[in-house]
């Protein structure tokens, strides 16, 4: 298996290099056959990478501990369904996974664009294949997932050996969220290469108009949605397993995933301006360049980068390799841009401050502002480490304080943007559209204060969220009513409205998902309550309006862990309203504890309990918290996916009927 797998990655490197070089050579020397051959070679990288992945998974399935990677990340007692997780649990395997995803995405991207972007496709192919070759190269030289296990031999030497059992999988990874969170995140980051390659390829070919815009928009949304879903599932995983009741910690590794996502969010908005109005051509390229370089920055930080984090793979020489690749990406991306930027003029200027173009610019400004603050927060401690004795921490409170207002501004723009017309809006029409949502949002703020909410920032935030939702509902209501009047019921009319302009209304659904996330964030940030409880059997303690009673404990011994399951009765007043099961396990091999929080979830609030310690005298130590509105964070997930699907669903091509035929059919009035 090991040899087969290693052969696959060496072959992959060769084929990817051939595809990259062949594309360019064929294009430059006008050898059409070479271009076609290189394109087919690019398709071939996908099955080659998959063969490599198949070899590694088969090695896991057959417990082939002669392969070091299998030895280090699995063992015999491990549940079989976690083989998939073990596959990308370390450096070599996760690189192989990224390589597979990138190869498949590249093949799809090249195949789908082979006619419409025929002229620039060889360059796009070359860029994608060069990136892919880099990943194959890293595996061949620095992080071979198929290297042999070695044991100490005679005289201090290392000899190949086959251990009886492996070290097992990190217990933090044995969670359903881990099935999808890392793969989605890595796929999303890798996928940004596709829109980047479309754009940079078009520029290299001298196609400086909008040929690439559609392909880059669609592939950009795909990778953006995959990345966004991955981030959200990661938050859910952290919430249920890391045991602090939080879901986002502004950890460097989280930040490096968020930054490309924010930049791509800016891009998928601003590309609409190019599509509709032929503007912002330079700016869109710059956004893609930034997103692509930030994705490489994420790779660098993730793999032996200089930042200490719970997420990072064990430090290794790979950090320098990825740093080099990131710098190369930066030079290449902006090199192509400055070579061609003089041809990237807009067709039209912005005509008014009160226009959708400017609303999009503001959205971009705030998104990049948040990205910058986040990057600065990641990089600053590194700078001080070099400059002084490295005594600076930049953690959650800093990011919340600086990014919080920017996010609030972004939400406000999200409400105002949709009512702005392209080119220019009159104050009168804006007033007509905004009067009701603004009025109701202010009323909502007043109602919150009257009801006793005493957190000024939360009142403002909730009120802004209400405003955003009301603007969307107002537009849906007005256009649905207009359709319903023309005949048909309301539900059908609403679906008709959605189907009529999918990018726009899909976008609104995504906006609703973002509002839902923000609703949960504001609730948990401003109104959470926490308590440390130490309970004897039968004792109870209070958190928020709840009372928790320690009912009993179940202990389960397994070969890899000792698990303890605490049963707690939940009371509110004198009524018993349910039970919670909180799980805690210790894995001696990893000297690591893993927990599963006991969570009682309602739309209003979560009661969240984590066992942190079991004392000798039989007392149980608990961290309990009440997390208001936490459920809405997860409800947003499906809404986000649905919205993205609607936005991407291809619009049926408009039916073209010659006017004469219509006149003949009496369809056009006043002429027949």
């Amino acid at each position, binding site marked *: 298996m090991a040899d087969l797998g290693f052969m696959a990655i060496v072959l992959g490197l060769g084929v990817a290099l051939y595809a990259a070089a062949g594309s360019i050579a064929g294009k430059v020397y006008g050898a059409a056959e070479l271009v076609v051959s290189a394109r087919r070679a690019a398709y071939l990288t996908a099955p080659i990478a998959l063969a490599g992945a198949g070899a590694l998974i088969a090695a896991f399935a057959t417990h082939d501990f002669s392969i070091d990677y299998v030895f280090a990340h699995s063992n015999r007692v491990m549940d079989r369904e976690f083989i998939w997780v073990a596959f990308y649990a370390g450096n070599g395997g996760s690189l192989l996974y990224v390589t597979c995803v990138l190869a498949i995405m590249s093949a799809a991207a090249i195949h789908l664009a082979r006619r419409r972007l025929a002229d620039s496709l060889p360059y796009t192919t070359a860029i994608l294949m060069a990136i892919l070759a880099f990943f194959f190269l890293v595996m061949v030289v620095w992080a071979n997932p198929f290297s042999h296990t070695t044991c100490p031999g005679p005289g201090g030497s290392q000899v190949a050996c086959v251990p009886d059992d492996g070290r097992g999988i990190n217990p933090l990874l044995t969670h359903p969220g881990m099935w999808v969170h890392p793969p989605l995140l890595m796929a999303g980051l890798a996928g940004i290469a596709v829109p980047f390659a479309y754009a940079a390829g078009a520029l290299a070919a001298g196609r400086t108009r909008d040929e690439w815009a559609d392909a880059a928009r669609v592939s950009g949304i795909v990778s953006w949605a995959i990345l966004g879903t991955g981030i959200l599932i990661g938050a859910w995983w952290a919430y249920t397993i890391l*045991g*602090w009741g939080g879901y986002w910690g*502004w*950890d460097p590794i989280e930040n490096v995933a968020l930054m490309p996502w924010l930049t791509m969010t800016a891009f998928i908005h601003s590309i609409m301006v190019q599509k509709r109005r032929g503007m912002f051509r330079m700016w869109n390229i710059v956004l893609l360049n930034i997103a692509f370089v930030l994705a490489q920055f994420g790779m660098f930080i993730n793999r032996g980068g200089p930042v*200490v984090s719970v997420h990072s793979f064990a430090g290794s020489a790979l950090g320098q390799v990825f740093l080099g690749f990131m710098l190369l990406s930066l030079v290449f991306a902006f090199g192509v841009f400055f070579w061609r930027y003089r041809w990237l003029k807009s067709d039209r200027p912005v005509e008014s401050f009160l226009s959708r173009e400017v609303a999009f610019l503001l959205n971009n400004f705030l998104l990049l*502002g948040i990205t910058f603050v986040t990057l600065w927060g990641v990089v*600053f401690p590194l700078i001080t480490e070099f400059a002084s004795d490295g005594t*600076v921490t930049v953690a*959650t409170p800093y990011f919340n304080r600086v990014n919080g207002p920017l996010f609030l501004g972004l939400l406000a723009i999200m409400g105002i943007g949709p009512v702005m017309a392209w080119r220019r809006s009159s104050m009168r029409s804006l007033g007509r559209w905004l009067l009701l949502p603004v009025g109701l949002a202010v009323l909502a*703020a007043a109602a919150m204060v009257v009801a006793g909410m005493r957190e000024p920032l939360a009142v403002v935030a909730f009120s802004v969220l209400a405003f955003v939702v009301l603007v969307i509902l107002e537009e849906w209501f007005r256009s649905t009513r207009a359709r319903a009047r023309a005949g048909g019921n309301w539900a059908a009319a609403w679906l008709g409205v959605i189907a009529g302009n999918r990018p726009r209304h899909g976008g609104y659904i995504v906006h609703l998902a973002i509002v839902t996330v923000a609703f949960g964030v504001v609730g948990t940030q401003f109104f959470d309550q926490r308590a440390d409880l130490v309970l004897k059997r039968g004792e109870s303690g209070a958190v928020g309006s709840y009372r928790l009673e320690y009912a009993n404990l179940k202990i389960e011994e397994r070969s890899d862990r000792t698990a303890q399951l605490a049963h707690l009765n939940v009371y509110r007043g004198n009524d018993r309203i349910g039970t919670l099961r909180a799980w805690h396990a210790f894995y001696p091999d990893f000297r690591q504890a893993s927990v599963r929080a006991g969570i009682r979830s309602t739309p209003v609030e979560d009661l969240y309990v984590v066992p942190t310690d079991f004392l000798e005298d039989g007392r149980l130590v608990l961290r309990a918290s009440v997390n208001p509105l936490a459920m809405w964070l997860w409800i947003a997930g499906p809404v986000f996916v649905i919205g993205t699907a609607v936005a991407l669903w291809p619009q049926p091509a408009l039916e073209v009927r010659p006017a004469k035929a219509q006149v003949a059919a009496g369809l056009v009035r006043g002429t027949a």
Partner: protein
Amino acid sequence: MGILVAALLGFIVLAAGCGRPAPTLEQRAQALDRQLICPVCPGETLDQSGVQIAKDMRVLIRERLAAGDTEEAIKAYFVDRYGTRILAEPPASGISLAVWVIPPVVLAAGAAALWAVVREMRRRAVAPRAEDESLGKYLGAVDDELGTGKRGAP
């Protein structure tokens, strides 16, 4: 209308802030938990961490608050023992002043650049071009007909 809304919202928010009850001891303690980093787990604040030292520090914070210490005194105590890296937010002094100053400066510069670019583009859009001159009187007539006033007015 914008000013009216802002004033109204400002008043409501002020009302919310004024009626705030004084925080309880536990609320003050939890606020401190969020401002201090657990010394052995990088990036995690005390309220996020489940390790023993974080628990001990949480207990210590509550004892000190109960004994009448101020938040500042408690923070100073921990800075004394662990250095400034114990603070989740860097202090606004010395080298870490930059972490607070740079973002607003960059954002302000970005906003100014954005404003200047849009204004410049708009000026060009409004300025009549040569081919527009000949159309001017026709478009003027159209505007008169529609009663929409001067063309190019915002």
